[in-house]
């Protein structure tokens, strides 16, 4: 895959995961990099950005082992953004699919 992952796709993935429950950084990163080939380290700048934009808040929770986990929680603003990005993505995917189907017809 040599396409650029464009505007908001990774952000959408993060927000979507957070819709289900709160995640801590390491969990989020491993979950996303399971599906999308991206340097794991670049997800933290994204997390920082969505926090700055107030799409998420963070809180620390003690763990049985190791350092306390920094959990990410989706805010109402984040939920609205998630909805908006989902719509944008579906719209985009629909158009690409339409093009692909048209392509088939011309073959």
């Amino acid at each position, binding site marked *: *895959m*040599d*396409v*650029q*992952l*464009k*505007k*908001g796709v*990774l*952000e959408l993935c993060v927000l979507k995961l957070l819709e289900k429950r709160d995640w801590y*950084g*390491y969990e989020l*990163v491993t979950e996303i*990099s399971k599906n*999308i*080939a*991206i*340097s*794991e*380290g*670049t997800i*933290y*700048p994204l*997390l*920082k*950005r969505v926090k*700055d934009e107030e799409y998420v808040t963070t809180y620390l929770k003690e763990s049985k*082992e*190791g*350092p306390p*986990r*920094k959990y990410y929680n989706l805010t109402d603003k984040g939920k609205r953004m998630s909805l908006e990005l989902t719509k944008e993505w579906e719209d985009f995917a629909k158009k690409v699919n339409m093009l692909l189907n048209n392509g088939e017809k011309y073959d």
Partner: protein
Amino acid sequence: MTKKEFLESLRNQLKNIPKEEIEEILQDYRDHITIGMENGRNEEELIKSLGDPKEIAKQLNANYHIKNAETKTSASNIIRALYATAGLGFFNLIFVLPLFFIILALLFVLFAVPVSLIFAGIVVIIVCVSNFLAPDYFFKNFDVAISTPEAVGASLISIGLVSMGLLILIAAYYASKAISKLVLRYLKFNLNIMQNKEEKYEH
């Protein structure tokens, strides 16, 4: 690369970011590596999959400087944000910077014109009023005599100039705000573009 080398390299590449923010960032990566090792991954593999600390730092720098320019909008902060975002490599500073300076020059004119209008208007009004209050003094010192109808006419025109200047000034203020918003939005758009893993390793 070891954990220590990774964190050191990241710290060294973070430019002009407040200390507490840097510590918070480094803590995230420190935790990531620690938790990864608790899950049975080895240090070297973990650090390799985090990617190049230089690339990570570029993103964090751009993040911070755009955010900073948004809260404290000034020409120098926007230039800093431009510079930091250019580091991501999606646009070339050589093309964008001249354009930015042209916009800056136009904005300067947009402010200079109303300021001179207002200044000129105020000077004329002061001259007319003082001439009305002390005509003898004026005649003696400047060798001019302004008749009352002339003074009234000139004052009215000057009031017009000053109000026009004020209106342009307000327009210029909103224009500069809109332009900086637009520039910052463009920079943010660049933040949202991410290259995938394979491409990044080619650098």
